[in-house]
């Protein structure tokens, strides 16, 4: 029988270690201190969190340098004031009621240890020390849980009712990201050297584009992720492979008809063509085959925008239709937010908003529908600040809630909008009609395409909107721009029937040099290895 006594002794010792070993718990010290009549201990400074054990050297309870007379005076008004007037934030447990918590903990643990002793004596005759260890550790975990529970209960043990107002405050908008994130993320500081970099101001390459339709309301060129440029010339649609230089004719419309807009799917070889009869055609360009025709508009389709399986089309009849290209019933919804031709249409970079610009001088922003397919039928924001048709639209890739829009001849402004709250961030007079806008992916810059008088492309620094460079060469207004899949090259289509390629966003040569040197080092080591 002596072994049982030993086991229970051992267990008791293990169970009790939280209380008996180490320095006396703080509540005890506190009580003793208060009995002794010292008043400083009410502001005891603690450096332990709730879940750590009670062991730990007690920090000095009083910061020297302040007379106790002064404190006793003040303690009636602000007893928790940090000595010396400094602002120190030390997690403390003044909020918890230690006497009650200790009582609750001891009451529970007392009952439990009794139970367990019973178990140990009745059930198991050959308990080895291993098992008691397991039990003890399980007990410890339970105990910690209990302590944290009790600590919280004790804090709120006053009773009473907890009331709250029924109409809750709204949550932040979906696109909101905590601005404090910047503080927490580690980034190399922005270089202090001037923002200017070398930008070649002449075009790298010029392609002929005969019969390119000079119509402000059409979008007749796009560059795919597979490095193919689609361009509509007259009644034909051509594909130019930017890697190989091959030219292929995709289709030719019948006499009098033409393509009004072209748009590549985000990935792959599907091209959507909006034509002059109001239909949207889908073409598989790898097979040069038309997949389907989706009608719905009563007038020509001048703008298209893809969002995975969804293609949104804007028409001269003022409506925007969302087509689901997978289903037989392709028409999901029709948006009637414009009274005149829709000539600009862009999904935001995070695909939560659709921006549309029209000949009625409006920019509408539509938010993603609750179902996740298409958009709500009412525009989230209607911006009417432009004084001319809005065709140029671009979403900022690094600030998903920022939209840039450019107005036509009567307006000439590039305006930036915050779609979270619908406010105008900035407006810049570009002094020429704005036909197209693109944000760079490599630099915090954007490029705008203009008409009379200089027919130039302008690169701006964002958000300062300092002009970086003017790219001149076109002899008539620049109608459309598209960016290469690597983001380094911009192609522009002008009314002078040329396509020009500008290598204006080439990655930083210094960064390129660095990566090159890394590469050469890697090569060297491989070379050495091969000799050996």
């Amino acid at each position, binding site marked *: 029988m002596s072994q049982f006594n030993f086991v229970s002794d051992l267990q008791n010792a293990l169970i009790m270690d939280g209380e008996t070993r180490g320095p006396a718990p703080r509540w005890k010290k506190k009580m003793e201190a208060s009995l002794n009549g010292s008043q400083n201990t009410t502001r005891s400074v603690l450096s332990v969190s709730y879940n750590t054990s009670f062991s730990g050297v007690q920090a000095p309870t009083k910061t020297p340098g302040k007379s106790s007379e002064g404190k006793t005076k003040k303690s009636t008004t602000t007893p928790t004031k940090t000595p010396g007037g400094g602002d120190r934030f030390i997690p403390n447990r003044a909020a918890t009621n230690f006497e009650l918590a200790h009582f609750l903990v001891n009451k529970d643990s007392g009952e439990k240890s009794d139970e367990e002793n019973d178990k140990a004596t009745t059930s198991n005759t050959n308990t080895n020390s291993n098992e008691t260890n397991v039990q003890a550790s399980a007990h410890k975990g339970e105990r910690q849980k209990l302590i944290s529970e009790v600590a919280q209960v004790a804090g709120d043990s006053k009773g009473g009712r*907890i009331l709250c107002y029924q109409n809750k405050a709204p949550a932040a908008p979906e696109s909101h990201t905590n601005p404090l994130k910047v503080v927490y993320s580690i980034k190399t500081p922005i270089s202090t050297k001037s923002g200017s970099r070398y930008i070649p101001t002449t075009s790298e390459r010029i392609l002929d584009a005969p019969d390119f339709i000079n119509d402000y309301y059409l979008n007749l060129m796009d560059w795919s992720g597979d490095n193919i440029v689609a361009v509509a010339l007259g009644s034909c649609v051509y594909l130019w492979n930017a890697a190989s230089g091959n030219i292929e004719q995709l289709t030719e419309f019948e006499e009098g008809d033409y393509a009004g807009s072209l748009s590549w799917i985000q990935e792959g070889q599907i091209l959507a063509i909006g034509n002059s009869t109001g239909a949207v055609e889908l073409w598989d360009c790898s097979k040069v085959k038309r997949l389907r025709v989706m009608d719905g508009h009563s007038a020509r389709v001048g703008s298209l925008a893809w969002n995975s399986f969804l293609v949104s089309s804007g028409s001269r009849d003022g409506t925007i239709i969302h087509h689901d290209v997978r289903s037989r019933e392709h028409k999901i919804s029709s948006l009637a937010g414009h009274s005149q031709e829709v000539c600009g249409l862009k999904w935001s970079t995070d695909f939560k908003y659709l921006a549309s610009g029209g000949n009625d001088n409006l920019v509408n922003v539509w938010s993603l529908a609750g179902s996740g397919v298409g958009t709500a039928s009412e525009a989230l924001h209607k911006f009417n600040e432009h004084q001319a048709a809005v065709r140029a639209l671009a979403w900022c890739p690094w600030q998903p809630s920022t939209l840039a829009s450019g107005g036509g001849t009567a307006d000439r402004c590039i305006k930036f909008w915050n779609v979270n709250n619908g406010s105008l961030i900035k407006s810049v007079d570009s002094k020429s009609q704005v036909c197209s806008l693109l944000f760079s992916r490599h630099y915090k810059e954007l490029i705008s395409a203009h008409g009379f008088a200089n027919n130039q492309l302008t690169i701006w620094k964002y958000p300062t909107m300092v002009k970086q460079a003017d790219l001149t060469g076109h002899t008539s207004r620049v109608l459309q721009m598209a960016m290469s899949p690597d983001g380094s090259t911009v192609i522009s289509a002008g009314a002078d029937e040329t396509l020009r390629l500008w290598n204006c966003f080439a990655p930083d040569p210094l960064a390129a040099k660095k990566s090159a040197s890394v590469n050469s080092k890697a090569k060297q080591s491989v070379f050495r290895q091969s000799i050996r």
Partner: protein
Amino acid sequence: MSSAQATKNCITLKGSAQIIVEYLKYGIHSILFQRGIYPAENFDSTQQYGLTILMSKDPKITTFLQNVLSQTEEWLSKNMINKISMVITNAHSKEVLECWDFKMQAENGDNQAADPSQRTSSKDQTRIQNEIRDVMRQISATVSYLPLLDCICTFDVMIHTLDNTELPAKWDETGAIVIQNAQAVQLRSFSTGLHKVETVVNYKMST
């Protein structure tokens, strides 16, 4: 003459409730901004307590706080509130991430009248304002140690009242909230002479 002097520096229970509600209003707006719960562009700056405090412009938030705080003022002027909690929750998972407790403690004032509504305090207004300013400063400094709220968040205000409080229209009773693995930091307190207000922030430790 002497009576005019006396009433000038006198704070009644109602006035004390007003001061506290004003503090709560500015405090909650400041927390909403400092913790980045709503987009920064929805805030306007105002001058109060000698500090620049950013106040939300969102009409939904302002009407919500207006409703809550007007009721709070009524209860406070009857000394029926133990604690006011501003709870910040993850809008999607509904997990409680942070809780700002404003603990109210009735004080006797100068004349320990049996009827609480007759009590007055002669504490200097500017001293109270200075105390509040110190707390407000601490609230804006909490950003340095509170964990990042990296999700879409919403907030609610819970009022811990006495047992015998009647439930007004459009109000609900809720349970206590629990923050897993919580850490508490107590900020400075201030007092109007009739109420003492302690501000404590409880937050979830990021593991």
